[in-house]
């Protein structure tokens, strides 16, 4: 009798393509593709890739063990040298951010929360399968404290010890030892041996990807711009999970198209569009909120200093060492010395790099994004602002997170900043 009144409704799993995460990705992707004109034809590869992976939930095939990384400080050349595939787990979804709020205090970084939320869900995105190992470099506090939580979700986690003073010799020694220990860990995971030939081949592979990135990066010096920043961010975001060789080929095609654009005198923006260098907390798809707001308002992001793009791919590894151990050491140095992450006690390199980018890319101003709760970026703002103030370079500081509800207010601030850059340029002319 009671069956007529009460009903037990069984769980009916929603297919990924109809999940809220997929919807979020779809909305952003449509915006990136449809609301801007004359996107490069070669960008279609990346648009399709994101649609497959983020909107449909298609898996990307990979070879060997899958090693998830939560930060760019895990040397990917080593992972490739052991025949494994790295995948960067840093996530940009607001839905996962909300889900991840279960693990972290409310005022924590959206990126860390979203990554935890994603790892704790059924749908690990990018859809590449469950990582055999998660490498968590001990960089910022929030990432450090994530290890235990990720372990609690049933993953095997490796803490890659990372120093927080860059300049000292002790740090250098410590970090080299950490990297060697990481290689041991990978040997245990894969059952393979690290050889000079394998490491050299891995470095050549990432080297080719970095070279393609550099070429793309250099095309962005052109005034007026040949490509928008929203597309450039999408390209580097794809590097997180795409097959590296396929990715490199796609970027080379894009570069070829940009060369044609350059020869044809093409312009992706108006000649007076304010040129912006983007720095701070990294834009990660689908959270391209700020770059999109900047470019909707008529500005153009010409370069960046973030760990989802420039910092991840710009610095190349020298491979002229003869001995395997020296090669590993030089690899370790490449991950420590040029790093401009704010987790270091002092970070003059970041300021130098930013000033350099502004000069080389003829930028009119800088936009600094700090995710609420990302203390290191929030704290480093002061010293960076002082430096720019001295140099007479305008900077807009924006504290935000993955939630879309501040877009109205942010668009006002960004437009006002771009208007002031335009006026400034007018008066200087």
């Amino acid at each position, binding site marked *: 009798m009671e069956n007529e009144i009460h009903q037990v409704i069984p769980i009916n799993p929603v297919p990924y393509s109809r999940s809220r995460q997929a919807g979020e990705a779809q909305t952003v992707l449509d915006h990136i593709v449809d609301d801007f004109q004359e996107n490069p034809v070669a960008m279609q590869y990346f648009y399709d890739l994101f649609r497959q992976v983020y909107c449909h939930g298609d898996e990307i095939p990979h070879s060997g063990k899958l090693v998830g990384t939560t930060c760019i400080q895990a040397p990917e050349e080593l992972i490739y040298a052991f025949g494994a595939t790295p995948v960067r787990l840093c996530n940009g979804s607001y839905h996962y951010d909300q889900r991840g709020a279960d693990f972290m205090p409310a005022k924590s970084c959206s990126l860390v929360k979203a990554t935890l939320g994603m790892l704790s869900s059924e749908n690990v995105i990018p859809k590449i399968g469950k990582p055999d190992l998660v490498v968590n470099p001990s960089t910022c506090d929030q990432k450090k404290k994530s290890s235990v939580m990720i372990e609690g979700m049933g993953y095997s986690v490796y803490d890659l010890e990372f120093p927080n003073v860059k300049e000292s010799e002790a740090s250098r020694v410590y970090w080299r030892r950490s990297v060697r220990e990481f290689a041991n860990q990978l040997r245990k995971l894969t059952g393979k041996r690290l050889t000079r030939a394998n490491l050299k081949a891995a470095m050549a592979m990432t080297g080719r990807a970095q070279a393609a990135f550099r070429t793309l990066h250099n095309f962005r010096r052109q005034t007026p711009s040949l490509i928008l920043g929203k597309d450039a961010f999408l390209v580097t975001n794809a590097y997180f999970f795409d097959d590296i060789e396929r990715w490199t080929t796609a970027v080379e095609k894009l570069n070829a198209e940009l060369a044609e654009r350059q020869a044809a005198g093409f312009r992706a923006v108006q000649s007076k569009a304010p040129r912006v260098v983007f720095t701070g907390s990294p834009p990660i798809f689908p959270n391209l909120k700020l770059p999109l707001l900047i470019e909707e308002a008529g500005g153009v992001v010409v370069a960046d200093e973030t760990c989802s793009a420039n910092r991840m791919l710009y610095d190349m590894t020298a491979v002229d060492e003869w001995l395997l151990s020296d090669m590993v050491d030089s690899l370790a140095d490449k991950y420590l010395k040029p790093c401009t992450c704010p987790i270091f006690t002092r970070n003059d390199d970041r300021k130098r790099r930013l000033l350099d980018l502004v000069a080389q890319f003829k930028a009119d101003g800088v936009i600094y994004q700090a995710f609420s709760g990302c203390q290191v970026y929030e704290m480093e703002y002061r010293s960076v602002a002082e430096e720019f103030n001295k140099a007479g370079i305008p900077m807009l500081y924006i504290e935000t997170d993955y939630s879309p509800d501040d877009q109205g207010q942010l668009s006002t601030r960004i437009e006002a900043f771009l208007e002031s850059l335009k*006026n400034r340029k007018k008066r200087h002319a």
Partner: protein
Amino acid sequence: MNYFAGIDVGSTAIKVALVDEQGQLAGVHVTASGSLFHKNSTEALNALLNKLGLQRDDVRYLIATGYGRKLFKEADDSISEITANAAGAFETGKAYGGVRTIINIGGQDSKAIRIDPTGNVENFAMNDKCAAGTGRFLDVAARNLELDLEELGDYHFQGDKAPLNINSTCTVFAESEIIGLLANGHGKSEIIAGIHYSIASRTVRLAKRVGVEDRVYFDGGPALNKGLVAAIQDELGRELLVPEYPQTTTAFGAAILARNDWQEENAG
């Protein structure tokens, strides 16, 4: 005669200003935003034109600004309210030896702007994404105290007790705090002064973030509240320039920019 219009489509009120070719203010009109932004904006513009005996064709160039700037499609251009506010305050301030810092409190945001001696925006800051320290906060407080918004200013000066501390930064929590203070028998004037000081200290912090330089201009609807003006002056320790029509500075600035743009386009 050629006229130029600025229309500031705010969250609470729509403000229209008209200037002539010399940049002299011809007239202003203020109306509630309501829910039909577009219709109300058009009506506000027409109302001002009627008042001045002008035709739509007399307006050569129109710039929209404010929260709803993109919704008013009849405009020739749109500009952020920060740039428009700076232009309006700079122009108004000329008669007073120049303005370098602007404090604006609107219906749903508050901002501080620093401009250079030529009127260009140097730095600005806005409140976080909530209603704390904005006009809406005063609205809510007046309702709790069963007063009209216009009465708050006078009450500020009536009490003989020190202003009470309103500790909540959130409008909703402050509402319950105010109710609690009333329940404990505190007088309206000390509560109101406390509210004004709570807004003032938030606003002054915002201004200090951009760097305060003389002279400081205070505008936006809440600048009509003399009690709030006194509280900000006290917290800031500097004199304030409050314009005759504090609600319409931004619309006036947009009208000035409309005139400049039109003259630039028609110069050759």
